[in-house]
Every structure is written in C-alpha cells, then in structure tokens.
C-alpha cells in the first residue's frame, strides 16, 4: 500500500467507473451555466478580439484556421507513432524498459502510471529530449533517432510541459507566434530587408496566432505578458503555442495539474475540440476522471514497463493496473 500514499491522484475517481462520463459532463455544463465560476472569474478581458478581428467571433471559423493543413502520410486510424522496444537508461537506472506501443492517427491516447513510472521519460524520448538507449521511435514513417529536437518539432511532434515553460517576458500572442515560426523559413537576410515572404509570414503568424488564442480561450489576453496570465490561462497558452507549430501529434504532459474540477471539465472539452479539429493527442495525466473520460485508448506504465494497453473500460478492470495503483492487498501477497 505504500505507493498509494506517494501518488497524488485520486483513486476514488479511478474506481468511480461507469458514471464517470456523466459526471464530467455535468461539471462542464456547470462551468458554462455559471459565469462566476472559478475559471471565468480570473479572466480579465483586455482586448475585445471581436473588435479587431471580427471574423474570429465565429468558433467555426476559428476551428478552421486552427485545423492542421499539412499532409500526413499516415491514414486515420493507422499508427502515426510506433514505439518499438524503446529503452532509456540513465547510468544504472532503467527509466524505460523495452516499451512498445502505437499512437494511431486521430485518437486521444492516454499514458498513465504511478509517479516515476516513466511517462515523462517516454515523452522525452519521443520529442528528442532524450535519445533512447535502444529501440526506435517511428513517426509518420520516419525514424526519429538522429534528429535534433527542433527538427522533430518541424516534423510534427509538439508538446507542453509538466511545469509550465512559457517565454514569460513575451506576450501571449508572441509566445504563440514563436510556435508558428517553426513552419517559417525567413532567416536573417529576409528579416533584415523585410522580404515579401517575411511580411507574408508575419501577417499569417498573427492571424493564425490570434485564432489559436481564441481557440484555447485566451484571445482577450493576447497582448499581456505570459507571466502575468493566471495559471489556467498559462496552461492553455502552452497548448496554443504547441498547436501553433502545426503538429501531427500533440503531446500534453499533465495539462490539468493544479486545476479545479470546473477547469478540468473545460480542459476536457478543449482536448476533444483539438481532436475533432484533426489532431492526434497523447495525454499524460494523473487525474483518472479526466483520463477515463476523454481518452480513446490508454497505455499504462509501471517502473518503466508497459503493463497494460487497451480501452479505458478494459484498463479500469485490469488487475495489474489496479495492483499498480492501489497496491496488492496484504492477504493476497501472504
């Protein structure tokens, strides 16, 4: 039972089972019905986006601008990312041990596990922060092994961070535009002499950036410094910045950390909205209610090994997963 006390997640939510779906739905409706809810309260609108960009008042237009425009080689439903026998070692410590799973295009895949199970390491191995000691990560038909981090981002893997890492002295819009720059080609000569391509890219970046901010719901704070944004908005801004790189796969590392139930419900809606806009999402999260409610499939890690892989309902009843989270009862081991 000792591990349970270390993990901050809520085992109650995990056990809650079938009613999870309705529960989050009613919560999220609350958030919209009740305008003085905790999430709405700290949003101080600075710019009325509709004043400046009237076309962004229509959510459908926003979603259309935000939707990915790039060609993806993988068909919907086929594996976009294939991890094969991925092992990551730090000295004598094996953080990931021969992990194999797929992320299919168009799905929301949950990656869960107790603290220290290797979820973030798995993320880092995919986004190029760590090089796998052995094994391969294939992304949209291309092996990621020797690529640099910024090249992997340009290929189409974007991520957010467990502890927020925005460019705090930049405005919200500038943060997002840094993301769009991943797709831009202007370098120093073009910028020095303001080449036509540079000007085109700049205009484009601002239009797309504003649409993204509207999409995640922080459009009104476009001109505020990122460090002045409320915590929840910072998390949303990170998602917008990641989406700005036009990823084929969006990796969210504990996006709901520190959120209250209403904010979590709104985040679930956002994640669904991102998926229905055509993105594939990989989600690391401790909150079982959120993971069970939003994911299509779940991979469970424990001590660097994959212990389960399946639909949320299957995972919920999987004895190995329950043992990993809740520990094995004393009478069972005895």
């Amino acid at each position, binding site marked *: 039972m000792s591990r349970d006390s270390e993990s901050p997640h809520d085992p109650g939510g995990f056990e809650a089972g079938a009613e999870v779906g309705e529960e989050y739905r009613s919560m999220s409706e609350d958030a919209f019905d009740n305008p003085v809810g905790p999430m709405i309260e700290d949003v101080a609108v600075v710019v009325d986006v509709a004043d400046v960009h009237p076309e962004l008042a229509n959510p459908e237009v926003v979603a259309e601008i935000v939707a990915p425009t790039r060609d993806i080689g993988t068909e919907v439903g086929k594996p976009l990312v294939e991890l094969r026998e991925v092992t990551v070692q730090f000295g004598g410590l094996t953080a990931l041990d021969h992990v194999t799973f797929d992320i299919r295009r168009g799905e929301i895949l949950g990656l869960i596990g107790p603290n220290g199970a290797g979820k973030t390491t798995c993320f880092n191995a995919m986004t190029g922060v760590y090089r796998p000691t052995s094994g391969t990560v294939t992304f949209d038909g291309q092996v990621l092994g020797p690529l640099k*981090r910024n090249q992997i*981002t340009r290929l189409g893997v974007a991520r957010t961070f467990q502890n927020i890492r925005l460019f705090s002295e930049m405005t919200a819009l500038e943060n997002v*535009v840094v993301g769009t720059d991943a*797709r831009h080609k202007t370098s120093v000569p*073009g*910028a020095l002499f303001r080449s036509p391509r*540079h000007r085109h890219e700049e205009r484009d970046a601002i239009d797309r950036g504003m649409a993204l901010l509207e999409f995640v719901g922080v459009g009104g704070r476009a001109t505020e410094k990122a460090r002045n944004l409320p915590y929840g908005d910072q998390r949303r801004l990170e998602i917008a910045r990641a989406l700005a790189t036009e990823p084929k796969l969006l990796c969210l590392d504990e996006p709901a950390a520190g959120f209250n139930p209403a904010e979590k419900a709104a985040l679930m809606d956002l994640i669904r909205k991102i998926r229905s806009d055509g993105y594939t999402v990989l989600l690391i999260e401790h909150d079982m209610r959120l993971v069970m409610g939003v994911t299509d499939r779940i991979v469970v890690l424990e001590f660097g090994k994959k212990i389960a892989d399946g639909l949320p309902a299957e995972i919920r009843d999987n004895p190995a997963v329950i043992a990993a989270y809740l520990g094995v009862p004393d009478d069972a081991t005895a």
Partner: protein
Amino acid sequence: MSQSADRPKGGVGDGFRGWWNAQSRPAQWAFGAPFILFIALLPILNIPLLTTVGTNFGGVMAQFGAYALIAIGLNVVVGQAGLLDLGYVGFYAVGAYTVALLTSPDSPWNQTGPDGWLSKDWAWLAALPIAVAVTAMSGLILGSPTLRLRGDYLAIVTLGFGEIVRLLADNLEEITGGGRGLSQVAYPRVGVSEEFPLGVFSSGNVGKTLNVYVWWYWLTIFLIVVVLLFVGNLERSRVGRAWVAIREDEDAAEIMGVPTFKFKLWAFVIGASIGGLSGALYAGLVQFVVPTGFNVINSVLFLCAVVLGGQGNKLGVILGAFIIVYLPNFFLGRQDILGVPINGDEIAQYKYLFFGLALMVLMIFRPQGLIPVRQKLLAYGRELFVAARKRSQREQAGGES
C-alpha cells in the same frame, strides 16, 4: 473592475511607451526625426553646463557615438539573445585593425600605396565593409565552437577571445607594429576646400565648434540610425523572437522548433559586425591604432553601458553608452557646478569606482536597467495593442468617474 486596471501602472515611462506604441509609423518618425536632429546638433549648440570643459565636447560626443554603436551591437548578443560576451572588445579591435592594416603606411598589407587597389580618397570607405565582413567572420569563427557552451562557460571563453586578439596585436610586430601601433590610418576625404586641404574629417580640422569630431559624430549618428533600423527589423521578426525565446528558456525554445544554435550564431555574427563597424569608425577617427586601446576593461565598460541602460532595450543601451562616456568627461577639468566648487579632475579619475557603485545601486533598486526592455517582437498586429490600450484607458476613465 478588471484585474488589469487594478494593477499599479508603471508611471510616466509606461505611459509614454503606451502612447508611442499607439502612434503610426509616420507619426513616430515625425516625433523621432527632430529628436535625432537635436541630439545631433548638441555639440554645436554649446548649451551651458551640458558642454564639457576639460575636453572638446564634440570629441566626447564622437566617442559617445562609437560607444553607442558598440552598445547596440553588444545588446543584440547580451540583451536579446542572452549570451554573456565578455570579450566584445575583441571584435572592436578586429574592425579597427582591419581598417588600419589595409590603409596604414606602417602596415605590410597597406593597399593605399601606388601598387595598392584602394584609392587614397576612398580607402576608408572601401575598407569599412571589408572590416565589417572580417569581423563577422571572426564572430562566426569564435561562435561556432563556443556557442555550444552556456552561461558562465561562454563568458570565460569570450573573455579569452578578447585577450587573444589584443595579445596578437601586441606581439605580431611585423604585421601590427606591436606596441607602436599603426598610424596614419585612412579617413573619408570629403569636403575638401582651401581651408581644409585634407577634408573635414581630417585631424587638421580643429579649434572651432564645427570640428572634425562633430563631422565624425554625424557620420556615426547616421550609421546608428541605419543599424537601429536593421536591428529593429530583426527584432520584429522570427529572428528576434528566436533570440528572446533562447534567452528566456533555451530548451523550451528548441522544443518549440527554434534552431537555437543557428540563431545564437547569427546573434554573435551580427553583434560582431556592429562592433567591427564601430572599430572601423574609431580607427578612422583617431587615425592611429594601438593594442592598449583594446584592454579588457573596455569590454567591461561596454557591458556596463548595456546593463546600465537596460538589457535588450536599444534606446536604453544608447543612454547607457552616453552615461558611460559623458559623465567622466563632464567632471574632467570642471571647477564648480552651478557655483558649488568641486574637484572635477579627481572625480573623473575615480570613474571606475563610481561606475561600480552605480551598478551595485542599480542592481538593488532597478535590476532591469534605467529603461527596462519591452520588445516588440511582431512586425504587425499593432491594432491589438491599440485596442488593448484604448480599452484599459476606457476602463480607467470609467473607474475614476
């Protein structure tokens, strides 16, 4: 009442900045151009108290111009990209020595003689772009192995570079003349008249208010405006955003798709070329280059100007350069301020002590510098800031009434 209006406002500075940012480009020029003109005319206006007594005020302003250019270049490296460069004087030296080696009769590579490919009249101007290109190359050569280092390690390596350049200049006697230096460096030969047979930029043009220094000062101001336009273009582009992103969080920047090494190298190269440009100006102004002019203390002074003015703020670092150059000269030879007797020479002698104290006080009370940075990193989208400003003004007005 919204949060933004409840937050204490930054006072006059922020108010001015908000107003300035809300102006259109032509309006900014309409206000900016007369201001630049006023700054340019300072040495010939002879304003009492402002004009230095111990040295020629034009000379002080010419030196200020050179330092301002350096501060702008160093600001790209330190202020924008956040790469601590303690050997910036090395680039300044490379620029100055390139011009001197190409145009001084003492140099073995002199090209202004009968066999040279530089015409005597245009030698300086022709050497200028060469100096900038050579310094850019030196920035590339220094940067490509060292920019893999971060923070303190980079600072130490650049410190070493600055010293290497100076020691080379001191010891390669056959080429650089060693401690004797290189004299009779070329300068732009324009404005030739009977009164000035060698042109207004020659060192013979002294003794009046409109002297050689003022001409150099004006040339420097022109170059500063050009450099500021270019640097501003870079700042409001993918390049400037990449630099700030690297400064804020290099790992996050790379994961967001910023080719960090490439843009750090660009920052180094651009900073170096601006330093080289300033060095070339300096060589032409004093027509004499010696290694002692490129001591490590100069690197520290340049950095001091950047930190004092406000890292990352182009106008701030110009103010910083002005303070660094002007204040010691203000006290030099001055016996009294508004009737209060002082020993100005003594004060000027202790300038490093006072700069040190000033930096310490600044770090305690205003670590972001005199004019804190607020970059504009977007080429367009001004309408958003205008809308935000109008909105906050409206809310403020609503709150007060």
